[in-house]
């Protein structure tokens, strides 16, 4: 088999094409990123209302305590005695994060779970499966079975729920124990 002959021109052309394409994508991203972020915020706000339908007052806890899991992206105190925790699973699990909003009482009981983004080809019923966690607490949330055929996503969701309990313990002063 003949080996292909590479020369300087090949390297220059390929590099130039890569740079031009990258530049075009950077320009596009400059215009689309703020719109995507705005849509994401709207989705999060909608998910807060979905996991805690009685929400009348919402306050974001901006100063998260040290040791908060890196998957926790935002924490909201709802109606003084409830919390909504917004999580994004680690990119180590998938090329795109799974977005999850968990509503919890101050006592550490899950009141609602909503998947705000899920990009995998195999679905586990993204609107139904997370509801298995409703009513669970830090002691028994691991009892929820993984979904056959979607094991990685099920486990990623379970780990995220665990991180939500960890976060609640930190912001709620150990109420989740």
């Amino acid at each position, binding site marked *: *088999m*003949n*080996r*292909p*002959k*590479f*020369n300087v*021109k*090949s*390297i220059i*052309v*390929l590099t130039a*094409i*890569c740079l031009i*394409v990258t530049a*075009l*994508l950077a320009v*596009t*991203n400059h*215009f*689309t990123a703020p*719109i*995507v972020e705005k*849509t994401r915020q709207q989705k999060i706000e909608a998910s807060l209302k979905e996991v805690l339908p009685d929400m009348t007052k919402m306050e974001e806890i901006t100063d998260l305590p040290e040791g908060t899991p890196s998957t926790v992206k935002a924490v909201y105190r709802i109606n003084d005695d409830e919390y909504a925790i917004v999580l994004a699973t680690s990119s180590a699990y998938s090329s795109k994060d799974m977005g999850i909003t968990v509503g919890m009482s101050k006592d550490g009981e899950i009141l609602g779970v909503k998947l705000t*983004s*899920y*990009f*995998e*080809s195999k679905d586990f019923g993204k609107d139904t499966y997370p509801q298995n966690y409703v009513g669970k607490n830090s002691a028994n949330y691991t009892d929820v079975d993984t979904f056959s055929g979607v094991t990685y996503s099920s486990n990623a969701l379970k780990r995220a729920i665990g991180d939500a309990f960890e976060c609640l313990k930190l912001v709620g002063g150990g109420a989740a124990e």
Partner: protein
Amino acid sequence: MKKLRILTNGLLKENPVLVLVLGTCPTLAMSVSVVNAIAMGLAATFVLICSNAVISLLRKVIPDTVRIPCYIVVIAGFVTLVQMLMEAYLPDLYDMLGVYLALIVVNCIILGRAEMFANKHNVLESALDGLGMGFGFTLALLAMAIIREVLGNASFAGHAIGFLQNYKIPILVAPPGGFLVFGCLIALVAAVTRGKAPKKKTFDCEGCPSASFCRKDCASCGVNTEKGGEANGNV
């Protein structure tokens, strides 16, 4: 007349899905619903037109040895562009298409047309080929999606069809149903285009991405030269 023939080739005579048997993976995955099929078809059409035009424009600049990496960079660039625009302006559709949108990069139709057509023809002809092939892909997806959604799910574009609710054929929306409908449509197109579909000689070394490296008969490089062999291992 020649340009009209280029444009219409992809619709039936050289339909990328039902005659060339390219892009099978997204076809089977995205033909469960009409909305998904149209969205995927239009996204792929946009990428086909743009990548064909740009590759044709650069065909004299790109050295032969690095042409495949260059094509992939151009195609991946346009796919990412579509992803960014869709995520910003059509977020619901973006969520619906999920991972299959990014997989347009490895859709054999796009690299196949770049290699077989765009690097041998001028910009206008290449763009027309992209448009024709894109519409052919969309039509094939749409035909499959209509059959699978209407008969398998008793709905059309998400709207329930009342009188069919008790006569659903659920297997049609499952993967085996996809293959079944796919096979039936291929047979139908083969019957309709009898004697007009591409002959064996179309699938020789000329269309092989490795042709410039091996320069041998196709049998030695493992590519099946029989009719339809080009589709071996396609995505």
